[in-house]
């Protein structure tokens, strides 16, 4: 065991209860007066985006944008306009924003040589989401797209919680004033956020953790980073260190470490020089972080309506969904995460209930690694059936969306055709023609129909089918990404997954390590 640099240092990354609670509340805030198709006041995507801005310390742009929106509201209204906009009119969606500024009219701005105008594309059927607010203050121009209003409103809600007197400040600083006032207020809000995060989300522990992992790898002379065995050994070496007790936590830490190293190397490869400008540094950091987040597959939404996977299935897939690029390289870690992460969880729960006993550390005899492998394979098959069921719904209700779903899975058209025992599409045809040909195959249509009839989950029965067809498309695309990740995991690690004996051997040897390690930690 490598001696710790300082075993007293806790690696429990602190986030204050109030920050945690504020974000939990954001996810579940209803409209006061919900209209058709309104769900929560702040969409999951908006809350996630704000979380990314906060976590990435990249909130300058969103503050600047929000202050512009407030400027437009204040200078076309009165002292209560900002409050009314966000909390009485609740103009926090594209449609409501369009309605609000349409009602105000194009000449409402009270400043000379300034204007606030809502512009929509002239085409028929243009949605509210395509409108934009054009702000002109002397020679300064700024455009806010209506699709941004929800994330800006989410930011406003959070600021109202953490910044005192924000409404009064907004009115006093912006009313009758120009661009300089916008800049000043935006900077001031950034400062407030910086000070708040210094207390509620201090980075020091995360930094210490990063250094410790780097040092540990250095001591192991592991230049290429962590392996499956390194991760297990690192967890064992972290015995007694707060914040690293759970194997699952250590796995997530390591994956984030690996991602951080990979993204930094990629970013350095693209840049010619290291920028010293803080804003440029922020930008590069955030671009790198966004790349990681963009790869994550949104698993939570797949358990809602339309329900594509169960919560239990989601739990099994969480590591793969959050780190699809890392997971397939750490096949044994994925198995350990699911099997022994659960094993440790059960021990922790027993300890909480003051019922922890020796039998909790006895390894179950069933080959749980083989079981996990079987479940992964079954998930791929089930996802395929779900795909066909969704296709059936879309072809029935919105054929264009059905074609869109197939087009988005163009790389898998052959496999889709094979799965439905349909003729494989001809390679000589364009993608649109291939899809059109596929949709004429009776075997495919029959497969879709049967898959739909066998699916009784929320969103797949006539009374529960949703009007929002895009939701079916988006969710199914995410589901197909899960399948692709699972296939890659199984195919790239055939040496492990193809052999029952290998799985059994690995399970037993890992089981010995986990059960003895946990027993030492929790009973002795």
């Amino acid at each position: 065991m490598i001696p710790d640099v300082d075993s007293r240092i806790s690696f429990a990354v602190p986030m204050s209860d109030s920050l945690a609670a504020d974000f939990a509340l954001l996810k579940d805030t209803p409209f006061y007066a919900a209209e058709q198709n309104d769900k929560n006041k702040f969409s999951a995507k908006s809350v996630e985006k704000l979380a990314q801005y906060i976590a990435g310390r990249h909130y300058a742009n969103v503050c600047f944008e929000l202050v512009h929106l407030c400027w437009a509201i204040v200078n076309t209204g009165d002292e209560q306009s900002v409050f009314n906009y966000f909390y009485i009119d609740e103009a926090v969606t594209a449609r409501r924003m369009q309605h609000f500024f349409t009602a105000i009219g194009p000449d409402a701005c009270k400043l000379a040589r300034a204007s606030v105008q809502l512009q929509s594309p002239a085409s028929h059927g243009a949605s509210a989401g395509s409108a934009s607010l054009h702000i002109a203050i002397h020679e300064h121009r700024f455009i806010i797209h209506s699709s941004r209003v929800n994330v800006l409103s989410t930011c406003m809600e959070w600021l109202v919680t953490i910044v005192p007197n924000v409404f009064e400040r907004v009115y006093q600083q912006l009313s009758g004033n120009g661009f300089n006032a916008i800049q000043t207020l935006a900077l001031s809000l950034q400062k407030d956020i910086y000070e708040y995060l210094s207390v509620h989300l201090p980075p020091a522990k995360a930094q210490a953790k990063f250094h410790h992992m780097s040092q540990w790898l250095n001591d192991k002379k592991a230049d290429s980073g962590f392996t499956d065995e390194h991760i297990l050994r690192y967890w064992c070496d972290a015995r007694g260190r707060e914040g690293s007790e759970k194997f699952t936590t250590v796995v997530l830490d390591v994956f984030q470490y690996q991602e951080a190293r990979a993204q930094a190397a990629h970013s350095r490869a693209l840049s010619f020089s290291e920028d010293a400008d803080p804003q440029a540094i922020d930008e590069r950091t955030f671009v790198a972080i966004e790349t990681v987040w963009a790869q994550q597959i949104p698993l939570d939404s797949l358990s809602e309506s339309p329900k594509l996977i169960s919560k239990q299935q989601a739990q099994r897939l969480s590591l793969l969904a959050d780190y699809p690029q890392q997971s397939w390289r750490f096949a044994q870690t994925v198995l350990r995460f699911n099997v022994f992460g659960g094993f440790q969880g059960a021990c922790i729960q027993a300890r909480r209930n003051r019922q922890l006993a020796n039998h909790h550390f006895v390894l179950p005899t069933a080959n749980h690694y083989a079981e996990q492998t079987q479940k992964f394979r079954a998930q791929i098959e089930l996802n395929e059936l779900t795909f066909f069921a969704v296709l059936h719904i879309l072809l029935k209700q919105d054929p264009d969306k059905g074609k869109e779903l197939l087009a988005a899975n163009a790389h898998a058209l052959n496999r889709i055709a094979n799965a439905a025992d349909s003729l494989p599409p001809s390679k000589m045809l364009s993608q649109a023609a291939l899809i059109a040909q596929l949709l004429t195959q009776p075997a495919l249509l029959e497969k879709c129909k049967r898959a739909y009839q066998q699916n009784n989950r929320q969103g797949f029965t006539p009374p529960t089918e949703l009007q929002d067809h895009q939701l079916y498309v988006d969710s199914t695309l995410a589901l197909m990404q899960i399948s692709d990740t699972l296939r890659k995991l199984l195919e790239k690690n055939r040496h492990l997954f193809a052999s029952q004996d290998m799985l059994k051997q690995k399970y037993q040897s890992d089981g010995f390590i986990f059960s003895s390690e946990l027993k030492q930690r929790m009973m002795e």
Partner: protein
Amino acid sequence: MNLHTAPLDERIFIALQAYEQIKYAALDQASNQRLSFTDIVSCVRCPDLPRSIRTLTIVNQRLDYRRKYRFILLQMSTLQSPQQVAASSNERLLQRNEAQFSIQIIENDKPIRGLKEDASVKIVLTLSESTEHNMRERAYLHCETDSKIEVVECQAGGGDRFSAVLAHDDLRMVALSDVNSHMYVTFT
């Protein structure tokens, strides 16, 4: 620690760690006493909903929430009756007269049908002149003292009057008849 001087991989790691924390933040038992600003606005707009009653209980436990509640009242309420400075603090205030409205507290020794208590109190809000508020179904009287906020729902009684009946020992009576209380009226 100055994040700007840390190496890029370290900054990315710190952000990923923070995002993991925020993304999976859940409202646990200890923090479910926390309110969003939207929660408090909804409570002011419609105080008689069960959710609003729970929210008001939490508002009354924290000074910063009461400040927010008061701010929202100031945005939404055009009818206010401030602390009655001319009255003695020992007086039990049974009438307030403002330019646009008056509030009367009528103590009734006779039981009102439907109330179990022997005696009751009638709260009458009378608007001074015809305004848009005459057409409203309900008025809410928000009564703020130093330590808490009480709300009484008054039903439209025809014309310019809204009224409510409270039991004599209703805890809200303390705030309603307190000379130091500040009253706001909102409508729905």
